[in-house]
């Protein structure tokens, strides 16, 4: 409660400062718009459906791209964790690729796939796949040996051992990886859309720039932030809290 009030007060203060600064007219309004004009842009964007369309396109792309990297990343992470040969080879490669900003993949993607949906998908996947892979691998390798022994001792083997012991035991790390992967995917998508223009929220952002419409730029930025936060807070925080409640403070019993 106290936290909520504090946060609310802080944001109100921020808007107030913004309002005062724009009232002082130090900078021209097309460079420093008022809060009202940004709010107006948000409303206009939603009422002429351009925001909704952009949002829809971006969500579809991220759904596909993120979904794909989760699927691939978890599989790859598990394989690297259990296979020493893969760990020494692919595992090292994954770590070095992780140091590449995802936008570096864009020129390559455009050359390979042209200005198509496939190219943006590729950038999103490359942006988030590695984070999911690395966290999955760490999670699996940190599963205490005792759980596997106990599982095998109680008759679990092969796929059941994987599904009922290894997977749930590595869940805390896995969720962290999914969360990080989501953040990377979202960032890659927006940056990709900004350069590789064709609908989407990133495109709207660049359109604002082209039209010298600072209000729209800020409005779209707010929207991008909001989506990122909502997924992070609602989806991942709920999942994490649930795991924390089950496992207690200590992770190994």
């Amino acid at each position, binding site marked *: 409660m106290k936290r909520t009030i504090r946060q609310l007060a802080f944001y109100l203060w921020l808007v107030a400062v913004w309002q005062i600064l724009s009232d002082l007219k130090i900078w021209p309004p097309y460079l420093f718009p008022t809060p009202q004009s940004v709010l107006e842009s948000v409303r206009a964007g939603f009422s002429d459906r351009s925001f909704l369309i952009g949002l829809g396109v971006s969500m579809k792309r991220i759904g596909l791209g993120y979904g794909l990297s989760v699927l691939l990343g978890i599989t790859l992470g598990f394989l690297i964790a259990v296979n020493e040969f893969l760990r020494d080879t692919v595992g090292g490669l994954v770590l070095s690729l992780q140091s590449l900003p995802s936008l570096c993949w864009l020129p390559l993607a455009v050359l390979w796939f042209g200005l198509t949906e496939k190219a943006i998908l590729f950038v999103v996947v490359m942006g988030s796949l590695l984070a999911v892979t690395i966290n999955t691998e760490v999670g699996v390798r940190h599963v205490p040996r005792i759980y596997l*022994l*106990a*599982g095998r*001792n*109680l008759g679990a083997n092969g796929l059941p051992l994987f599904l009922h*012991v290894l997977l749930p035991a590595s*869940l805390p790390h896995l969720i962290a990886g999914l969360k990080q992967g989501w953040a990377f995917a979202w960032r890659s998508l927006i940056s990709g859309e900004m350069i590789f223009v064709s609908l989407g929220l990133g495109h709207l952002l660049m359109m604002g720039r082209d039209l010298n419409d600072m209000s729209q730029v800020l409005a779209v930025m707010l929207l991008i932030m909001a989506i990122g936060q909502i997924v992070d807070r609602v989806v991942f925080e709920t999942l994490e809290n649930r795991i924390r409640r089950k*496992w*207690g403070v*200590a992770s190994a019993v």
Partner: protein
Amino acid sequence: MPLETTQAFVTREAKLRLEGVSRSFQTARGLLVALEDLHLEVREGEFLCLVGPSGCGKSTLLSLLAGLDRPTAGEIWMDGRPVEGPGTDRIVIFQELGLFPWLTVQENVEFGLRMQGVGKRERRERSQHYLRLVHLSRFETSYVHQLSGGMKQRVALARSLVTEPDVLLMDEPFAALDAQTRDLLHEELARLWAETGKTIVFVTHNVREAVRLGDRVMLLTFRPGRIKSQFDITLPRPRHLEDPELALTAREVLAQLKEEINKAVKEEYNHEENH
């Protein structure tokens, strides 16, 4: 009075039989022989306690019996059949227990049955039966982290009993508990053993605990692990840790154990001097 025997005399087909079992590990310092040429028989329904200094291969022996590890040489038999892998007829209770934190108490207990494909209703019935047996019925929906150390031990016990194994293999299960809780669990284990007639192999470094629980106490030597001596414990049950006869017997076993502990300590010192 305890009777020192050189070889266990077996009248019927042994529940567990080890023939010339050795297990060695390749380490950075060279070959480590954990167990060497072990011959041993465990009778059906017997409560056998294995005692030895740390590093004598007690836990290794349990893993071999459980089928979670394979011997380097020799053979292990259960009911006249060779042990080739883990099976729910032999359940280990590890010192760290390995209860699953993502499952409730009841789901933990049901785990073995679930892996066997037992239906939900039967699973429920059987898990509730064993949770009652260890006095944990009220905690079936709790998660593991919400339980005390002693309660966790009892969950592990119920989880092991539920698949109705013939043999329980217990690896220092009570080592981390306070004295009162341990005493309580000794009583409960003795009762469960009497009620269910399971064969129990119990590993401990606590001589009193071994004498308190076992029909037979077997002493292992320090590296390589061999059988040093065996004691048949014929003290009447129920036994209590404070019984003077128990203390007397324990002292006898302890005297022999001390030799091995000294050997272990010496080896540690030598290692330090060499490094």
